């Protein structure tokens, strides 16, 4: 039987409007798939059937009344379990908070409801978004996030459930968050498309705060088209959720038409990162670069010389230590899943303020230098990760601890820059690989255009794991 959730958002939206399916049928299919495969992948924290079916019924009633809320109308989605949902537990991945219930919805959830979307599940995540320094995959009260392509491989973090659920076809899209790699990593490891918006582009109101100056919320979906549609719905730089008072450039309409700049795209290639990648990852990156060369020019670049990782680390540690000082003081950290997390952030309780401020001062200089480089390109590209998803049993030190060379992740997250990761094929153990495109602040439109151009010439984003959901509605 065909998968009722197959196809992109636009396809599902067309099927709803043609009468080939209904929001209720889609919600039921997603709920059934999440109950079966989502549980198997440790991707689900809480299913929300009552809410989902009520929202689906409202979506149907609205359409019957001639009210069309746009492309997400009637489409089911999952939200990372750090986004507040009124009356539904929001555990932040942490056992000690599994009964935490807020009386309000996060701004992103509100905006998606206004767009007619249907929330079917709160999706699993690494405890406290990884802020306590986890060193292995088993760091969530829902168990280690399992990869949609190989259940014995890690799904990545911290948006583990969002990545696995989208890849397995359990939901058409999900919402993730990133402080440093938490969207791009699970997206790349699971072979989906993930967009990290510019810092401040999407309101963080109602989201768990790990790092006030680095947290971002963004879409994880099957294609750049779908990420663009979701971003257009959730982007809302309101003053309550954004640290910036100035209003960023508006997003363009998501037309799903590839808009290449005159003369083609200009890509800067972080060649040192390609060279540092595992052979299969590097080979797939080279193949992806050959595709990008069909739509633009490629120039090897180096990032301006700054200690991006050191500055980003100091900022995250200082802000997380402050944000969770009471959590630690109340003894709640002792209940975390990963042993190393139980004493995590104690070190940062003594991090000097001058170190934090020095990192913030350096961030401004690094941001200016990076923008000067990015102004010459539509995107700088590099392998998203240098390796495929590690086995669940592998300590991170054997993967992430090695000398990684230059990294878009550290620079981009430190400076609040947007990035999108697209699947580029498969590497060791048949697991997905990805390419990251990073752009100027508030330059999501151009990144989406470039990613659409790539995906118009490749089909990696259409591949699904053999076990992908074919569950039919009850």
């Amino acid at each position, binding site marked *: 039987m065909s998968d009722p959730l197959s196809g992109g958002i636009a396809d599902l939206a067309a099927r709803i409007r043609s009468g080939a399916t209904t929001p209720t049928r889609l919600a039921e299919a997603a709920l059934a798939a999440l109950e079966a495969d989502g549980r198997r992948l440790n991707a689900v924290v809480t299913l929300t059937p009552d809410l989902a079916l009520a929202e689906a019924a409202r979506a149907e009633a609205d359409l019957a009344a001639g009210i069309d809320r746009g492309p997400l109308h009637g489409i089911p989605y999952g939200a990372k379990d750090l986004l507040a949902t009124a009356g539904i537990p929001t555990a932040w991945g942490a056992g000690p908070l599994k009964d935490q219930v807020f009386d309000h919805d996060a701004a992103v959830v509100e905006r998606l409801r206004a767009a007619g979307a249907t929330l079917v599940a709160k999706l699993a995540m690494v405890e406290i978004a990884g802020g306590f320094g986890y060193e292995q995959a088993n760091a969530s009260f829902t168990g280690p996030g399992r990869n949609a392509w190989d259940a014995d491989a890690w799904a990545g973090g911290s948006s583990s459930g969002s990545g696995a659920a989208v890849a397995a076809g359990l939901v058409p899209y999900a919402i993730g968050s990133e402080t440093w790699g938490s969207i791009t990593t699970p997206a790349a490891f699971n072979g989906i498309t993930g967009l990290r918006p510019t810092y401040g582009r999407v309101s963080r109101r109602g989201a768990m705060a790990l790092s006030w100056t680095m947290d971002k919320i963004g879409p994880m979906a099957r294609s750049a088209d779908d990420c663009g549609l979701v971003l257009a719905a959730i982007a809302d730089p309101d003053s309550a959720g954004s640290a*910036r008072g100035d209003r960023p450039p508006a997003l363009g309409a998501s037309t799903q038409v590839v808009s290449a700049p005159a003369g083609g795209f200009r890509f800067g290639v972080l060649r040192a990162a390609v060279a540092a990648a595992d052979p299969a990852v590097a080979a797939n990156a080279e193949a992806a670069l050959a595709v990008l060369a069909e739509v633009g020019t490629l120039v090897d670049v180096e990032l301006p010389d700054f200690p991006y990782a050191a500055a980003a680390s100091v900022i995250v540690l200082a802000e997380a230590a402050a944000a969770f000082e009471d959590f630690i003081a109340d003894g709640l950290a*002792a209940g975390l899943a990963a042993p190393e997390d*139980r*004493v995590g952030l*104690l070190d940062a309780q003594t*991090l000097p303020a001058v170190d934090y401020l020095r990192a913030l*001062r350096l961030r*401004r200089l690094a941001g200016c230098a990076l923008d000067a480089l990015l102004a010459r390109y539509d995107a700088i590209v590099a392998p998203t990760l240098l390796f495929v998803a590690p086995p669940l049993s592998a300590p991170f030190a054997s993967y992430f601890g090695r000398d990684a060379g230059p990294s878009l992740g550290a620079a981009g997250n430190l400076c609040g820059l947007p990035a999108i990761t697209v699947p580029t094929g498969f590497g060791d153990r048949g697991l997905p690989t990805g390419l990251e495109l990073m752009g100027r602040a508030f330059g999501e439109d151009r990144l989406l255009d470039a990613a659409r151009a790539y995906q118009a010439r490749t089909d990696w984003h259409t591949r699904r794991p053999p076990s992908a959901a074919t569950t039919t509605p009850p």
Partner: protein
Amino acid sequence: MSDPEPTRSGATDPDAPTLSPTARAVADARLAAVVARHGHRLADNEDRARVGRAIERQVDLAEQLRRVPLANHDEPEIDFVPFRAPDTDTETTL
């Protein structure tokens, strides 16, 4: 005053940063502060060693930051906006 030879803690940890004696003293002092405040949360020597290694990494990170020259006018990225509640119709004019 310059530091003599750097030292590396934890001979069993090849990833441990190499710290100067001054940085080592800072790391030791910070660990002592953690133990004073949170010692009851450290179940065993392994926990204490784990926190100690994390502090050493942070001290090393801070040293990396200090290698970038900054001028007095290089301000931190802080978004501070003085608060003023929205005006209301009942506000008294002074």
